[in-house]
């Protein structure tokens, strides 16, 4: 905050020194330059005649997609049910496994900040760093194709998500309430039940429903690699270029996601 004293005794105040101003402008300039450079790299290998063609191609596929083949719906009900089950059971499994991990990872509840906490964080990071589709790819080879591989894939991907958000919530609880319950002579388990759980319950509910909502989308994709659900139908339809079926599947996915979002909004509203 440079303050300059003018000759007439008035004080001039500016947020930054001229030097800081200059540096900031230079920073913005670098950012723009970088953007231009990246654009050039990005478009180096683009074949522009294909891009020019894009609207025609898109219109062509779009045309083939309408009208959707509504009769195909008869064969979608079952995969749709599978998809919802994969998402729900996967989320449930992730919650069961993720909650203990969260308590082990939170600074104020971990039994050992030097040994256990890094391990719990490792579990969280490794779970989060691998996409559900890749988990599914691995699990289909291990467990064989089917719904089970999908459930486990969704669960493995979600553990990290659930545990990370939950441990952040645990670290943010009001320690005074914990202190107060401890002061009554309560055991550690009772302190957790009376002072911690009530404080993290809204976060927990929000996280679970949010993840379920995400998992509905993910579970409609894992079928692409053979892990059951709508994705399986999508893949077979794509393989035979049955565009009207593809469009119907996409519509069904859209409807399911809309529904799940509505449900999760309702649930979150009811709990908080």
């Amino acid at each position, binding site marked *: 905050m440079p303050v300059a004293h003018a000759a007439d005794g008035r004080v001039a105040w500016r947020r930054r020194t001229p030097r800081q101003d200059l540096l900031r402008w230079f920073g913005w300039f670098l950012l723009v330059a970088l953007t231009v450079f990246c654009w050039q790299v990005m478009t180096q290998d683009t074949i522009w005649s294909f891009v020019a063609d894009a609207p025609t191609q898109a219109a062509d596929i779009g045309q083939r997609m309408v009208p959707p083949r509504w009769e195909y719906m008869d064969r979608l009900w079952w995969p749709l049910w599978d998809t919802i089950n994969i998402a729900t059971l996967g989320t449930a499994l992730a919650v069961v496994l993720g909650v203990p991990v969260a308590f082990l990872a939170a600074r104020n509840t971990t039994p050992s900040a030097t040994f256990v906490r890094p391990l719990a964080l490792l579990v969280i990071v490794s779970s989060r760093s691998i996409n559900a589709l890749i988990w599914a790819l691995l699990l289909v080879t291990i467990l064989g194709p089917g719904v089970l591989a999908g459930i486990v894939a969704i669960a493995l991907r979600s553990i990290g998500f659930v545990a990370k958000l939950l441990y952040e919530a645990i670290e943010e609880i009001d320690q005074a309430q914990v202190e107060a319950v401890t002061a009554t002579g309560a055991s550690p388990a*009772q302190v957790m039940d009376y002072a911690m759980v009530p404080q993290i319950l809204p976060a927990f509910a929000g996280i679970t429903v949010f993840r379920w909502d995400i998992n509905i989308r993910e579970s409609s994709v894992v079928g692409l690699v053979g892990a059951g659900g709508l994705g399986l139908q999508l893949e077979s339809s794509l393989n035979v270029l049955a565009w009207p079926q593809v469009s119907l599947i996409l519509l069904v996915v859209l409807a399911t996601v809309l529904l799940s979002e509505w449900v999760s909004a309702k649930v979150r509203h009811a709990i908080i």
Partner: protein
Amino acid sequence: MLRIEGLTKRYRTGDLALEGVDLEVPAGQVMGLIGPSGAGKSTLIRCINRLVEPSAGRVFLGGAEVTGLGRAQLRAMRRRMGMIFQEFALVERLTVMENVLSGRLGYVPFWRSLSRRFPPEDVTKAYRTLDRVGLIDHVDKRADALSGGQRQRVGIARALVQDPDILLIDEPTASLDPKTSRQIMRLIGEICSERGLAAIVNIHDVGLAQMFLQRIVGLRHGKVVFDGPAEALKPDVLTQIYGEEDWTRSIRDDEEDGDAARADRKHGDHAAEPERERLAGLT
């Protein structure tokens, strides 16, 4: 009742919060602990129930040593020490009843407390205590739906259902308005004399301390610098505790009980006043 010998606390940061504090609180005495912020008042009462582990020194409650107890014994010992907090420290999302019953957690096995199936005597005790602090109509409300004064009453009830021998009270009025502060201090005083409870009250408001407490201990830089009756708190003593300042106006005047008391007198009706004031703000 409570005896503290050479209590010293050095935090890991190196700050010396308490330095060789010796103190004795006889049964039934309500003692005020005053001192500037950072003098070690909160640390002192937290060292008594070992929410903060003392670095040196010993604490005895009714002849039994608190320092050096193992975990399970410490939990049993904590049941005998009720604690009341500055920001109430209620579990906001639990009901008033659950908060009060949490005072019984040290007596109840985990599975019972998990299913909230407390023994009938505990529930009766909780109801009686809530009635005593004037909250019988708020039993099923969530703690975060109450006003400040009401929350502190829940805090008091939670400490009382422990059946404690002593109350450790950390700035009970710091988050309350002047009128509610008096009501709460009066309630604490009444309850302690009803039950013959000893208490240590950390308090910032010197006038309030003089009004409701018999004995005052002054703490400065972790050492006891004053210990005497409330009337002995003169400007020179306050200067010794807090440092240089014009103290004449913060000390209670014997002729007038301070502003609120003056206002009370205008209303006339002296006898009904304490009771009405105690229940004010509850409806």
